[in-house]
């Protein structure tokens, strides 16, 4: 045991461990994991489709591709648009960021609207066999992610009006943008599976 007046000394510089700034690491790990749910659905879709004697519900030979194709173009281009919004933020051009960011939100909202229109014109339902279930499950689950993305973007837009909000870095904007790219990539695979592979 030590006595009161003995002096303890450390012969080296004590180390430090960063307390924060791990959000991006955590978020990337989370996204990788999240993508596996989609992967599971994609595998399920493919397995059911390959082994099904009749895939589409009675009276349907396939699904119309026009509307979804427009949607695809919009969503994919929005991934480029959001990239420029980020650029503006890096250059500290707040209004440029806000405007381009908002345009991305509009493009995302249009996608959701297009999805809604497509759904309302379809003649089969969630209960129409394995295909019906899979179709609504995949597009619906993806749509939920798009809506989440738009809401998160709204939050970031709102935060940009708080003075000095982006002084400490743009972590939130960067993760939302990453999430948006993720949603985009998932859609491309989904589009290939459901609409191109008929």
């Amino acid at each position, binding site marked *: *045991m*030590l006595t*009161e007046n003995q*002096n*303890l*000394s*450390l*012969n*080296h*510089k*004590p*180390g*430090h*461990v*960063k*307390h924060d700034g*791990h*959000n991006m*690491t*955590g978020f990337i*790990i*989370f996204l*990788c*994991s*999240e*993508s*596996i*749910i989609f*992967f*599971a*659905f994609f595998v*399920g879709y493919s*397995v*059911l489709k390959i*082994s*099904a004697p*009749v*895939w589409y519900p009675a009276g349907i030979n396939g699904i119309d591709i026009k509307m979804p194709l427009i949607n695809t173009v919009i969503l994919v281009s929005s991934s480029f648009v959001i990239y420029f919004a980020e650029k503006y933020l890096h250059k500290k051009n707040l209004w440029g960021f806000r405007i381009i960011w908002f345009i991305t939100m509009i493009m995302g909202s249009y996608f959701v609207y297009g999805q809604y229109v497509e759904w309302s014109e379809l003649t089969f339902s*969630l*209960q129409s*066999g*394995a*295909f*019906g*279930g*899979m179709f609504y*499950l995949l597009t619906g*689950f993806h749509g939920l992610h798009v809506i989440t993305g738009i809401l998160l973007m709204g939050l970031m837009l709102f935060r940009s009006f708080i003075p000095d909000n982006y002084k400490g870095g743009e972590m939130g904007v960067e993760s939302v943008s990453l999430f948006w790219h993720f949603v985009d990539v998932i859609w491309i695979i989904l589009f290939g599976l459901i609409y191109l592979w008929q």
Partner: protein
Amino acid sequence: MTIVNYDPRLVKTKNPYPKGPNDWKRFFSFNTDAKVIGIQYIVTALFFLLIGGLLGMLIRGELITPPSDLFDPTVYNGLYTMHGTIMLFLFLFPILSGLTNLLVPPMIGAPDMAFPKLNALAFWLVPVFSIILLLSFFVPGGPASSGWWSYPPISIQNPLGKVLNGEMLWIIAISLSGISSIIGAVNFVTTIIRMRAPGMGFFKMPIFIWTVLAAQLLQLLGLPALTGGAIMLFFDLTFGTSFFRVEGGGDPVLFQHFFWFYSHPAVYVMVLPVFGIFSELFPVYSRKPLFGYKFVAVASFGITILSLVVWVHHMFYTGTPMWMRNLFMFTTMLIAVPTGVKVFAWIATLWGGNIRLSTPMLFCLGGLFNFIFGGITGVMLATVPVDIHVGNTYFVVAHFHYIIFNTIAFGIFAAIYHWFPKFTGKMFYEGLGKVHFALTFIGATLNWLPLHWAGLLGMPRRVASYDPEFAIWNVLASVGAFILGVASIPFILNMVSSWVRGKPAPPNPWKAIGLEWLLPSPPPHENFEEDIPTVLNEPYCYGLNKPFVEDEQFYIEKSLIKH
């Protein structure tokens, strides 16, 4: 090297628990301290071990006689389903999260987890989904009754036609448990990757950290597949979709793939940290360096990768084509290689060691012995022709209880005893610990060893009544189960009375090497606070005269200062 004069007694100590009152109340609050959360997890999980154990004893009570006389067979179906579900999702996963929470930050020299708030959220989901699961006992039609694997078509039958039913609550509870586990996994992996002490490269990490990393990566890769399957099952049950319904063009076997793609790795999520515990404890209690540290470390990742490609061994008899059976028989047997590396390393560590048979070591040795036995029956089951015969019999039940209880739970008990002084600051009673071990070992062996014979003779699992020729094995098993029930008494007594009035524990009662043993018992709120040690070697250099951290004496003396 700079010299920093530093006398910790002169530095004003911050309130060691700034985020809450320093008393029992903090265990009932949304506390973000990993050490509090760890204990919250462990105590909650042990409570559910009692509930799950009670259900287990009810099952064994039914099976002590051949006819189904104690329960209606339908009730019996609910009992074993809930028993398995509670043991896995309310006991094993939470208790391992608890140990991981307690051990990871101090072992790597981090002040806390990377995301303390998410950490607390992950814990508080446990009581939420536990209550949902237990409520299912009271809904019309009773709890889920299709076994812990919930295979369709049985699980989506919903005989009463009610929207709110036991199976639905089961799926909701399991999904919430999945969310909690994913939050935990993101947290653990980030913490281990980003917050290690200076000098602690990957090949200086304790093996426990290696195994946690391997196990949590498995969670991240596997669990979402089960979540996907569970969502589809939920839709089939509630919204009348046909993902797994043959009538609508669905495929029930698809669910089995989703389920086992996760649930086989899940058994490794549970056993890997226990491998870590073995690797930590054997060197301490035999005073020798861990044999083949690097091999043991890397083998953890061998297990991670292989365990993602063996799941079909649970489906050898559900219409799997021959080529697939052979392929998965091969991969399953391959997994014996990294596992074998670890087993040999432990035996070599023990060999010629100065073995001290204290309670934690007894549980470790018992666990290792049982693991070797359970591993052998595992390889037998991986052999397709054998499995076709004994699949779905009590042989499988015996195999996995040898692993899940006799190995994993043994390792958990070993860990609880070993680190009890560190995190409560009190010593436990060695005598009571030994009684606990003896009762547990006898009870567990009597419970599951005879069931191998029942299974080999063809007794099917999940039945409330059976042919009288199997009676003798079942009587033995039931007696074992009741002994296990009794074994909880010395354990609870020991834990409660030691925590309340045990002798104060020194910082390093077992003379162990490791960052956590350089901290006072219990460690202060932020572990090493501002002076984190620089690690020089892996923590297994017993008798090698190699320094563990720079300036070790400083930390030892600091840990001895009374606050």
